[in-house]
């Protein structure tokens, strides 16, 4: 997959004039999705920013057929649609396009059920790390200390949960992380995921300008810095093999990472951090790396 090839896709995913905020990461993700699997896919969308982005009746801004569904129900509705298509001998990819709340919080049990059943569906969690659509409330994936409207002064006091690892431990055959700053990587992961029969989940890192309080022109820059500072790790698990993706691989070595502060200082949600908080975040980050490196070793042994 190359950028020009990706750009050639006929299906544009999301149309111009859609009501997303300027710099919206979801629209980047949807564009890649459209180009890779547009005409093959049916989207199931739980409540979230995409409920708005998809446009206003009688129009639709997405070039996918799509079902809007209640917050906690997406992976189950997708399972039903899949079952129906199988029963009727119909082809197609059933995709859940969800935010962090719909996948990791209110919809976690539903997602877990679908993963355990190894439903032949693809779940893309476009994670903007808070409930943005309702006005930036803290979610299960909001990082420690981030300011949100429900952690407005001190920042979030809890850890963030790792939905991709949770799905890996459900024994799902395909789980990966991706970032809107690396569309080719995301596109290739989508393509590989499609080759796998069974439950597939891609956890897409989606920095949100109003939610994280950075300039709308800097979405890709922030997303890229997340990877370059090691705050977001790209990896892929596919049927028994676990690899840290090439884009993240150099940053296994701490020295090669950019200073974390570069990533944090762009974001208003971290403007209140004290130096010791940054050190604490670095420690947590280091733990994540240690686990991912161990996982890579663990799976390469088998």
């Amino acid at each position: 997959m190359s950028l020009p090839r990706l750009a050639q896709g006929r299906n544009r995913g999301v149309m111009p004039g859609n009501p997303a905020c300027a710099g919206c990461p979801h629209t980047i993700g949807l564009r890649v999705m459209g180009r890779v699997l547009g005409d093959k896919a049916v989207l199931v969308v739980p409540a979230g920013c995409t409920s708005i982005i998809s446009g206003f009746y009688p129009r639709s801004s997405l070039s996918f057929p799509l079902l809007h569904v209640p917050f906690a129900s997406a992976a189950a509705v997708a399972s039903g649609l899949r079952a129906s298509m199988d029963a009727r001998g119909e082809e197609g990819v059933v995709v859940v396009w969800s935010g962090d709340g719909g996948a990791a919080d209110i919809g976690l049990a539903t997602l877990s059920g679908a993963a355990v059943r190894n439903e032949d569906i693809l779940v893309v969690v476009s994670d903007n790390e808070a409930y943005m659509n309702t006005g930036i409330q803290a979610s299960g994936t909001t990082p420690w200390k981030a300011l949100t409207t429900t952690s407005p002064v001190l920042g979030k006091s809890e850890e963030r949960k790792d939905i991709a690892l949770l799905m890996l431990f459900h024994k799902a055959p395909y789980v990966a992380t991706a970032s809107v700053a690396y569309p080719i990587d995301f596109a290739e992961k989508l393509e590989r995921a499609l080759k796998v029969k069974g439950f597939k989940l891609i956890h897409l890192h989606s920095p949100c300008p109003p939610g994280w309080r950075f300039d709308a022109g800097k979405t890709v820059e922030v997303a890229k810095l997340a990877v370059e500072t090691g705050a977001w790790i790209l990896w892929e698990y596919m049927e028994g093999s676990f690899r840290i993706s090439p884009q993240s691989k150099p940053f296994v070595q701490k020295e090669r990472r950019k200073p974390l502060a570069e990533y944090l200082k762009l974001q208003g949600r971290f403007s209140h951090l004290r130096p010791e908080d940054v050190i604490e975040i670095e420690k947590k980050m280091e733990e994540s790396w240690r686990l991912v490196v161990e996982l890579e070793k663990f799976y390469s042994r088998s």
Partner: protein
Amino acid sequence: MKKKILMGSHAVAEAVKLARVDVISAYPITPQTVIVERLAEMVERGELKSRYVRVESEHSALAVVYGASAGGSRVFTATSSHGLLYMYEMLWWVTNSRLPVVMAVATRAIGPPWNIHTDHNDALTIRDAGWIIGFAESVQEAFDMTLQAYKIGEDKRVLLPVMIALDGFILSHTSEPVLVPEEEEVADWLPPREPLPFKVEPGKPFAVGNLGPDNVTMELRWNAWKAAERAKRVIEEVSAQYEKRFVTGTSSGLVERYETEGAKYLAISIGAWSGDVKEAVDALREEGYDVGLARIRYVRPFPREELRDLLSSVRAAVVLDRSVSMGHMGILGSEVRAVSERTPVKNVIAGIGGVDVSYKDFISILRGFVEEYEAGLSGEWSVAEWYMPWVTER
């Protein structure tokens, strides 16, 4: 036509099998579970070619069959009590998407305290969610209504989900002889589901449920409202057609009239205990009381006109309620009172939490009701009466 001895739950499963559903999904809850256990067995033995999706909650069970129905499949789920309440959000979503879904509800009390026995609060609590709600009196009727539910809900004039309630244990776990039509006969009477006016399929961008102007929401509700009104005719048609073809001996339409001809007093009930009410009516008739029973078969759409007619020809009516809306009255009682033009309606709440109410209790309830009316006490009926003979201090 075969005669089989079937438990209520197995009768429902048999009907689902004959309806040739494509997708089944459910989550266990007593007393419903036996229905879906039986279906799982049918699927695993290869007697039924359905997809069976074992989910992690009732919310997901309804979400699965919703997704499958959106894909054009014929579907089934079942639940009880807490499971039904856990589905509440999805119930509305299904209706507002105008997708046919059939669900059996083995009625059960809502906790706490934990109680697995029947009352009607679970099924009646969802009466505003836009589902067609039928209540069976017998195992045969649970079977018949389940099969009819597909034809009613899938009818182009309706396109609404249908719930068939059968009293937990009293019907779900009781065996009765059931007349079961042959597969080919049913296949002829109930053809495969017709495709939806739209289809969710790859390559055809089409959004179901996008944001829209407020007036569109209101117009969609109005359309569903009209469909529910039309459903009355469809229920009558389908049930009459069915009875004519299969002659299983159950009644048709929205209301069954039992000894209502020339009755001066009317009892009104739903569900399994109506059989006991009928016995009480027989006994009282012999004693010279002119009582009859209107058994409501469908609570939604509500048989307004039928009940209004029945009520207008009697002196007074008593609604036997196995449900209660706190701070007001029995749920069925308030529904019936709302359509009574002049006839006084007494409301008796009994059998909550599965408390047994025998035909003897009904004799005493009905006798008391007639005597109160004749003593000129109907003015005191505004508050519902709780029938609890074991409680002596009031």
